[in-house]
């Protein structure tokens, strides 16, 4: 029987393959690249790429955030949007909520005001501004040369219109919170007023905004600076704007490039806007396409894309040497990871934090501090992220160079110290099982909520649990597993339904342009998942946005104090700061990955040759 024979042979071959494989791997002597104990990495030349890479530690300070050079005239740039989904296609700053959409919009539209390195508004943008002495009235003047892509001038009315649309009860975007600081917006929203009191159109190019109260936050991202072309949108009902063709099919803006064509969710092509107010762009055209995170390296290598908006940093060590046609730009990212302690619930009636230290297992500050000492975040950064994440110190990440206070001493890995604190605080191992009981002699088991997703989520959570166990604190994963993204936020209290089972959680925040941390750690914000509050904290947070804090030095001082206070109280502790890497093809010049205080504007980016450099 021929068929059976061939099958038999096939089957036996595979069986052998399997055995050989097992044999190969167990006998390390015959294989060249499996030396494990001696000579970690560096010395070995051929064979295992990864082993070599894994030993290496990088420092974000070694990366430049920008690349300069002399571009040729024209050319096309291929830009990769790294996403594992399509982009939603709501291509207008006033309506988008999908982070990928904003990457698409950035190419063809821009804010009316520029910002400096402290994220404070400057006079370099498409509009200039003046502030009254009290700091609650702003007068904006849009530059004459600023036009929409269809040639119509950008007017004060366009700007006011954007705010009116956002304040409209039918508005379906998520920006309402950004405009409520203007006098009269809430009345307009509730239908009590026909117009917004705080908006005054002085002439075609001049707009005056009156705010409820002066605060330094207004100057750092607190003003809505995106206009909406009224001549296009005025006939569209507000509820239908975000699904209209003016947003999805042929959106316009004031940026250096115009949208030429859109393949929904997949790609966008742009041509240069010769009429751009800063000057004519270097490039003739830009092509943006979605690239899956799994395939980004190959796409860069073949020159399919010249650069991407963000690169999965965990892939960097593997590709650093093989991607010779690419230069990696880098900077400190605006996000940080933290461990939070649950100390209460959310009071839905009064919309505020309901702290309850008595009934919280982590209500004791000494316990929290000891847990901080128990974890080695430098090792986490080096081992999991090859140094591309590193030990975090305070809750204002070093992304805010001005406000981050690096003189503050924060707990770093010291298990002896952790043990000592716990001993002193009365957490003794009463029954001798190697696990500490609480000061009342009761068993102490903490539930740890951590999100799934991402390559390192699981090992990272396990690492923390192991580290705490080393000092005798028993921590278990909530439900014995990682929590799916949506479930995690539901249970940690995103809508105020806090799960009482959670004692500790690991979260991450990506911070905005305004340094003010009230939105995350204030007593009245739902995002303060710890449900911790205290007078001093509230006082400092309020102080930071008070009129006096318009003075930069004073504001710095307040936030230094706040950072230090949070280190003392440990309602949360930051674990690692992150870095952002952006690979750009060698032919790309004049690109700066910083959004604030950029030395190079987007219209200046260019290429040095027609074809991408390939290895």
């Amino acid at each position, binding site marked *: 029987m021929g068929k059976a024979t061939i099958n038999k042979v096939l089957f036996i071959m595979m069986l052998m*393959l399997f055995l050989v494989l097992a044999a190969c791997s167990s006998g390390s002597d015959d294989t060249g690249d499996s*030396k494990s104990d001696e000579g970690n990495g560096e010395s070995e030349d051929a064979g295992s790429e990864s082993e070599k890479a894994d030993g290496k530690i990088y420092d974000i300070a070694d990366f430049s955030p920008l690349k300069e050079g002399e571009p040729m005239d024209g050319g096309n740039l291929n830009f990769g949007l790294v996403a594992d989904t399509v982009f939603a296609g709501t291509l207008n700053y006033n309506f988008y909520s999908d982070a990928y959409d904003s990457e698409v919009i950035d190419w063809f539209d821009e804010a009316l005001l520029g910002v400096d390195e402290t994220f404070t508004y400057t006079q370099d943008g498409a509009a200039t501004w003046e502030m009254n002495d009290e700091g609650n009235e702003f007068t904006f003047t849009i530059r004459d040369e600023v036009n929409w892509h269809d040639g119509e001038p950008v007017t004060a009315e366009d700007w006011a219109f954007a705010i009116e649309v956002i304040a409209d009860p039918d508005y379906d975007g998520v920006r309402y919170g950004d405009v409520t600081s203007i006098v009269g917006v809430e009345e307009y929203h509730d239908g009590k007023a026909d117009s917004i009191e705080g908006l005054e159109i002085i002439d075609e190019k001049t707009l005056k905004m009156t705010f409820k109260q002066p605060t330094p936050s207004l100057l750092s991202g607190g003003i809505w600076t995106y206009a909406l072309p009224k001549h296009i949108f005025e006939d569209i009902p507000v509820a239908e704007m975000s699904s209209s063709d003016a947003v999805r099919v042929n959106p316009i803006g004031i940026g250096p490039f115009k949208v030429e064509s859109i393949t929904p969710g997949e790609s966008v092509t742009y041509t240069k806007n010769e009429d751009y107010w800063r000057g004519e762009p270097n490039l003739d055209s830009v092509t943006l396409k979605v690239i899956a995170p799994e395939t980004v390296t190959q796409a860069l290598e073949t020159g399919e894309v010249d650069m991407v908006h963000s690169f999965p940093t965990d892939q960097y060590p593997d590709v650093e040497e093989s991607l010779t046609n690419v230069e990696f730009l880098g900077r400190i990212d605006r996000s940080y990871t933290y461990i939070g302690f649950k100390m209460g619930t959310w009071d839905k009636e009064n919309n505020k934090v309901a702290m309850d230290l008595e009934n919280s297992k982590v209500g004791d500050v000494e316990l929290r501090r000891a847990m901080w000492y128990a974890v080695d975040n430098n090792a986490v950064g080096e081992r999991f992220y090859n140094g591309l994440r590193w030990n975090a110190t305070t809750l204002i990440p070093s992304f805010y160079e001005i406000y981050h206070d690096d003189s503050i001493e924060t707990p770093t890995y010291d298990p002896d110290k952790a043990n000592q604190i716990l001993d002193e605080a009365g957490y003794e191992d009463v029954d001798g099982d190697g696990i500490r009981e609480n000061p009342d002699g009761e068993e102490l088991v903490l539930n740890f909520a951590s999100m799934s997703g991402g390559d390192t989520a699981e090992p990272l959570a396990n690492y923390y649990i192991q580290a705490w166990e080393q000092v005798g604190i028993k921590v278990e994963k909530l439900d014995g597993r990682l929590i799916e993204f949506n479930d995690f936020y539901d249970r940690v209290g995103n809508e105020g339904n806090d799960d009482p089972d959670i004692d500790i959680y690991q979260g991450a925040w990506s911070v905005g342009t305004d340094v003010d941390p009230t939105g995350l750690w204030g007593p009245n914000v739902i995002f303060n998942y710890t449900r911790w509050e205290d007078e001093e904290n509230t006082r400092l947070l309020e102080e930071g946005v008070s009129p006096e804090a318009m003075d930069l030095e004073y504001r710095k001082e307040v936030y230094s104090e706040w950072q230090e206070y949070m280190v003392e109280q440990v309602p949360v502790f930051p674990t690692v700061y992150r870095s952002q890497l952006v690979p750009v093809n060698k032919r790309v010049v004049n690109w700066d990955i910083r959004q604030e205080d950029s030395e190079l504007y987007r219209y200046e980016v260019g290429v040095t040759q027609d074809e991408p450099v390939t290895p």
Partner: protein
Amino acid sequence: MEADTVEIVEQKSPSSLSILLRELIRDKLALISLIFLILIAGFVFGLSLFLDQAEIVTVDLFAINAPPSDQFILGTDYGGRDVFGQLIIGTRNSLAIGILVTLISGIFGIAYGVVSGYFGGHVDNALMRIIDFFMVLPFLLIIIVFVSMTSNYSIVSFSLIMAAFSWMGIARLIRSKALQEKELDYAQASKTLGTSNFNIIFKQVLPNITSLIIVTMTLNLASNIGLESGLSFLGFGFPEDTPSLGTLLSYARNPQTLEFRWWIWAPAAILILLLMLSVRNVGEALRRAADARQRRG
């Protein structure tokens, strides 16, 4: 669990089972496959008794993505976790789910089919409409929806979810056989003798379709193992600290892992291939044995 079922069957109907076994032994390929399956199953279930799942998924910060070595027979993954240990536990979990789903769906399907076929008439009609409905469900999508809904599931509840959408095939098959069987003399005779319906079904009709049941369930086993690994691959299976063959395979979605770290995913891929081939070889041999026309001389 499986052993139990086989044992019971053996008492009731030695003849058909022994024919199956004889055929299996005669077919060398199937025999090798069967031995391989038993070895693998025995190995992973046996070894996993001694392996501590918590220890396997323990993070070792100083051995991340290590290639195979003396310490780690199959190297480690990005969490510094031993791949060999994960492979053993993963195979056990995958097999356990596959067997569990097959048994649950098999038992339910058989009961459903026998009842429907034996009673016929309106009962049959109603039951078949329900099956028709289930048959057209886009079951992969529904399982994914189900899994995202119940955020906290164990091996058993996961198997239940999968079984809920995979019992229809066997139910249909058994029904048509039961329809035929009950018309046969012996069933009719028992009925006139006043034997209860229950007894006729379980003592007489069922044993006569044993071989068919075994064959179908064996083949189902292969597809259930495949389905589980597929779901894990898409990220709707088990979390990483409950490894399965599918989770190990899903690491291959990272191109660096695919290209440079074969030890993480290749063993799982080969193992799943071998498991599916073996199960199928056994199943096909059983089918041949059950099918008198094709019995080898």
